[in-house]
């Protein structure tokens, strides 16, 4: 019996068992019904959504801090803390007014000065914020409820920047907190969001507790992702960190927790069989797998070598390694943008379609001048998604005749080594793998991995004037048709220059007990609208 079978077996028995009361914490029925116990995707190890940009921090921060605008399920930014906005005819001056009733958790009102300080800190760390900062004349508080952002040139994507859900989000904090250096961590956690952070109960690596903020005034509109009325229907949300998936599955079946954010595909069939548990796709925007090549050093500094990879790469191999045989969980992706979103395109994607051609790949590789030197492939073994992709890549490169130096390591080491620009023999690298949340690949503004501005680009440092030209064209576009045309051209250019190799589009599940209702599909777990019966 291998470990995986044992895990399944262990989790499977729970599906036959009735829910157990023995393991429940000593809470009264009423209190239990008002406490939602949630198993997050990762440990909440720090809690500064500007300093640390991990998704788990963003997800927790969305409970505690509010944003000026919020992206809704149609990917449009909607007013959230803002009551109204005006933009001058020349597009250079934006004036915003805060809605009434906004209050921080310490009882202080939310004022324009808090917003100005928060945006200043955020804009030092965020890619769209940096663009705004570069064209900023001034960002000032006009009065307690009004602030103004004066620019040197128009920025049509302003509302998207302020409301986007990619990290770091433009969360609003009290001025004293927001004045913290953006590269240093805050040490208090006061926000104006629908829940308060119970700092005293925080055990990093084990538990984080959020309590309903009684003075929060939700908007009147229906909630939709980060937009609309954030009505919290429970008193407490407890994040219970369970690092072992089999233990998390067992705890869910036993009723020790209510909602598990990301069950692994191996355990989903077991959970689906349990009559007390619901399982569904967590986020229709899913994820995009990434095979990232270093554009600075041979062999992948030659576009022919990169094209050789695309010619031979089978996305099906990668996706089956990632999510198994459940074909509803993945689809091929002959492009870079998230499927079923407005900018999705397959323009230029022929190279990723059809039968895979190892012979043609070998020919291209030979033309690139590759002569058998080792290719360093960094593979984080502690991240199942990167490990599965790394194993497939090693096999693929060997089939192409490459000499693979497979560096099996952990994510901490990959995170450090991938930043090295030195040649692979001197601490650098040629290949590493990651994945991008689909929500971060819906348009060029939030998509760092598609940028190709050399030294300023994401790891791998691709340079492609054609790609950068289309990114600029998208930002300057005046309507959707222009935006769409720019993205089509961008996709084609990015495939021609092989900014990176997409390994496919995949979805993941979320699971909850049936006494929980109101869970919405989206790029992060939304706790507003979620209720629990005893």
């Amino acid at each position, binding site marked *: 019996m291998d*470990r995986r079978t*044992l*895990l399944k*077996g*262990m*989790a499977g*028995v*729970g599906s036959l*068992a*009735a829910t*157990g009361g*023995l*393991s429940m*914490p*000593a809470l009264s029925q009423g209190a239990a019904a008002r406490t939602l116990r949630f198993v997050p995707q990762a440990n909440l*190890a*720090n809690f*500064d959504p500007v*300093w*640390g*940009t*991990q*998704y788990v921090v963003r997800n927790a921060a969305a409970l505690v801090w509010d944003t000026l605008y919020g992206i809704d399920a149609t990917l449009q930014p909607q007013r959230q803390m803002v009551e109204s906005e005006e933009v001058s005819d020349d597009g250079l001056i934006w004036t915003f007014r805060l809605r009434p009733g906004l209050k921080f958790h310490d009882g202080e009102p939310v004022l324009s000065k808090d917003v100005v300080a928060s945006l200043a800190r955020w804009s030092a760390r965020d*890619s769209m914020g940096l663009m705004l900062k570069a064209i900023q004349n001034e960002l000032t508080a006009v009065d307690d409820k009004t602030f103004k952002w004066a620019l040197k040139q128009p920025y049509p994507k302003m509302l998207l920047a302020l409301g986007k859900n*990619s*990290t770091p989000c433009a969360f609003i904090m009290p001025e004293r907190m927001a004045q913290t*250096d953006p*590269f240093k961590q805050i*040490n208090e956690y006061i926000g104006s969001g629908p829940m308060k952070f119970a700092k005293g109960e925080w*055990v*990093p*690596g*084990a*538990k984080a507790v959020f309590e309903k903020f009684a003075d929060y005034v939700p908007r009147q509109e229906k909630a939709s992702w980060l937009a609309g009325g954030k009505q919290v229907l429970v008193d407490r949300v407890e994040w219970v*960190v*369970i*690092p*072992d998936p089999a*233990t*998390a599955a*067992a*705890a869910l*079946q*036993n009723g*020790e927790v209510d909602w598990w954010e990301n069950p692994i595909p191996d355990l989903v069939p077991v959970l689906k069989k349990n009559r007390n548990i619901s399982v569904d796709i967590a986020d229709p925007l899913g994820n995009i797998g990434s095979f990232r090549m270093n554009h600075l050093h041979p062999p992948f500094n030659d576009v022919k070598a990169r094209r050789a990879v695309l010619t031979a790469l089978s996305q099906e191999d990668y996706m089956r390694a990632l999510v198994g045989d459940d074909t509803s969980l993945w689809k091929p992706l002959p492009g870079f943008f998230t499927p079923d979103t407005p900018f999705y395109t397959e323009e230029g994607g022929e190279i990723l379609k059809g039968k895979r051609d190892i012979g043609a790949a070998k020919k291209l590789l030979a033309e690139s001048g590759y002569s058998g030197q080792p290719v360093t492939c960094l593979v984080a073994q*502690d991240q199942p998604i990167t490990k599965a992709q790394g194993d497939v890549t090693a096999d693929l490169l060997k089939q192409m005749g490459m000499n693979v130096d497979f560096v099996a*390591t*952990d*994510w*901490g*080491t990959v*995170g*450090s*080594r*991938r*930043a090295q620009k030195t040649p692979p023999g001197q601490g650098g690298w040629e290949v590493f793998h*990651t994945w991008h949340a689909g929500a971060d690949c819906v348009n060029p503004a939030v998509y760092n*991995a598609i940028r190709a501005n050399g030294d*300023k680009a994401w*790891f791998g440092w691709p340079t492609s004037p054609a790609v950068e030209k289309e990114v600029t064209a998208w930002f300057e576009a005046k309507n959707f048709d222009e935006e769409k045309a720019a993205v089509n051209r961008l996709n084609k250019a990015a495939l021609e220059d092989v900014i990176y190799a997409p390994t496919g589009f995949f979805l993941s599940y979320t699971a909850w007990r049936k006494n929980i209702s109101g869970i919405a599909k989206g790029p992060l777990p939304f706790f507003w609208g979620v209720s629990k019966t005893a």
Partner: protein
Amino acid sequence: MVSYILRRILATLPVMAIVALFVFSLLYIAPGDPAAVIAGDQASPADVERIRQSLGLDRPFLVQFGTWLWHILHFDLGTSIFTNLPVASLIAQRIEPTLSLMAITLVLTILIAVPLGVVAAWKAGSWVDRTIMGFAVFGFSIPVFVVGYVLAYVFALEFEWLPVQGYTPLAEGFWPWLKNLILPSVALGCVYIALIARITRASMLEVLQQDYIRTARAKGLDQRSILFVHALKNAAVPIVTVIGIGIALLIGGAVVTESVFAIPGLGRLTIDAILRRDYPVIQGIVLLFSFLYVLVNLMVDVTYTLVDPRIRY
């Protein structure tokens, strides 16, 4: 005795200093970068570098070591890079579950392993001996996480007698506290029980060959008194030694056990800190465990005087 204990405590200082230097150096040369982990996957290389600078990780080795050592000398273990909380607070949050787990495991082990070893020695060569030693080999060979999953499978999911995961502080009641620790303690104790049972058997076998045991039998003492009063006491020195050495096994095993049963103890804190390269936390925990280990060894040495009057310091 008092002067011996004081000398031994003083002797721990250079040991701790060497451990401190070793741990700091090892982490310094180890691959990985906390700044990269903090910055997240979407961060730019420039962001990573700025974070590294703000954490002081770009300073020379000696400067970093000197600063850290200065804080240690002032009983300040530093601040976690990730949580921004004092390392001492993080350890304080986590020490109760780990000590509870180790204490229950130790008690369970002694209560089970020592009698098993004594009986195996008494019935040496019989089916009883072979069965006990067979279980010992099995317990010694099977990984902690496998035992943990099987126990959870049977006693938590099938019978629903015990919880799958978590920890309840002792302050919230004895049974809630114990309930969460039974399965992890048994899982963690398996290896330890096997080890102590085998050592007890070996030591007892040697003692049972001695003349005074034959004399005791000749004068008509009952078997229980011979085994547990006369023989066991004289066989205790190696058993106590191995129990002490086994504390290291417990510390290592706690790391896995706490992960399988989601117990928020020092073992999980260690794993999390290593994966994130949270250097101050790793250094603090290693120093603490080293100190505990030195202390346990001292206690073992002192215990020798209780079981063997010939030993005097």
